[in-house]
């Protein structure tokens, strides 16, 4: 590797990594938090079988999972202004990522709630608790343990998917790299560099996941064994 390439990598690193810290991570954290809220609400509506709303939720999940994320970004950022709805790029990206990931996570959360044995609910009723009390105190905490690994999966997916936001002018980590690459023509080196930074971020999440699982297991007295 020539000295020039090394210099470019070193001088561009703070710029690229900085956009990662300043844009990619906040974009991911905000979007994913909102996605979880969307997911839990959608899952609960389906589990509780709320008439009308349930169909609406199925429809939403069907649309989101059946269309590409990139197309959704374009629709909202470039398409909605035709209807007079104009959002700045960052909130636009947050909305699309949250709604997109929310649909996938809704299925994860629903499956996890359904995996909690029916007897837990029945035992709750028999000690006099209400549906809401049992859900909040017994079923959801157990479902969360089950949902945690697949939700971590979704988070890891999302941090990489935020690179698509470059297409709608969000100056995140990937777009910052493109800028430098466009100026210096060192594509191989620079895209390798940004790939390694994504890998670093994902490694940290993987590590946090393991920590979280250990903590959740401790709260359930070792691995959850169900009668």
């Amino acid at each position: 590797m020539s000295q020039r390439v090394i210099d470019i990598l070193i001088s561009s690193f703070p710029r690229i990594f900085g956009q990662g810290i300043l844009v990619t991570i906040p974009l991911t954290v905000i979007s994913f938090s909102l996605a979880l809220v969307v997911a839990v609400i959608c899952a609960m509506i389906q589990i509780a079988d709320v008439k009308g709303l349930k169909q609406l939720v199925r429809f939403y999940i069907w649309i989101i999972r059946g269309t590409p994320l990139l197309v959704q970004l374009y629709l909202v950022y470039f398409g909605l202004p035709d209807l007079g709805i104009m959002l700045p790029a960052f909130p636009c990206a947050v909305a699309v990522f949250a709604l997109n990931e929310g649909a996938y996570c809704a299925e994860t959360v629903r499956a996890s709630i359904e995996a909690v044995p029916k007897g837990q609910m029945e035992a709750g009723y028999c000690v006099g608790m209400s549906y809401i009390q049992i859900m909040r105190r017994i079923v959801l905490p157990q479902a969360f343990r089950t949902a945690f690994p697949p939700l971590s999966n979704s988070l890891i997916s999302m941090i990489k998917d935020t690179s698509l936001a470059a297409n709608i002018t969000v100056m995140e980590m990937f777009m910052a790299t493109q800028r430098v690459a466009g100026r210096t023509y060192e594509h191989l080196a620079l895209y390798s560099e940004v790939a390694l930074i994504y890998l670093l971020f994902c490694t940290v999440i993987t590590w946090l996941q393991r920590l979280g699982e250990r903590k959740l297991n401790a709260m359930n007295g070792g691995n959850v064994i169900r009668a």
Partner: protein
Amino acid sequence: MLEIEGLKKAIDGHQILRGVDLSLEKGDVLAVLGPSGGGKTTLLRCLNYLERADAGTMTFLGQRMDMPSMTRRQSAEYRRHTAFVFQSFNLFSNKTALQNVTEGLIVARKMPKAQALERAMAALERVGLADKRDAYPSQLSGGQQQRVAIARAVAGQPDVIFFDEPTSALDPELIGGVLDVIQALAEDGMTMIVVTHEVHFARNVSTHVLFMDEGVALASAPTRAFFEEQKLERIQSFFRSLDRKDGQI
């Protein structure tokens, strides 16, 4: 205290209960015996509204209720007077033994925490598991889990406890400990309905026996009369078949 008339229940087109009557006085221990598929468990689940009966009236503590039309609120109120012990324990797996007992007291009955803790510890002591208060269900044996479940039932100071085959999921060497606990409750005058396959237990502990077969109460009698003056061929052959299996009775 508890009276049921004409209880009927069909599940997926199968008539499981074809009109069951039963009557329970305070302090009674009613053993429900009979072959598998006879409707014992469904009967018990209907009694606590885990299944909604298709027909039947219940008179409980002087109050007459039409079982199919009970509202959620009414059944919740009724359940505060009863307790249920499941075949598969159904302890809350995200709660410790102590929390399993206090949960209903604090959350459902709005009992002050200190009082709930005191009562829960007394209940755990009663089943001999005070030292396991901080253990999670996954750290307990089946027999211990079922004893915690009984503590959870007792702690609510119910008027009646329903047991659904409380020892059927246990290893043979663990059954005795659980039956001892139930027997002690009986001796303390607790009103109970126990669905069981333990004929010895029914004979020694219960005050009355109800024999369920094909959705009807084939026989209902005080325990001594049931065993010693049994004339029904169907019931005698049921006991003979048990006899062959494990030399009981």
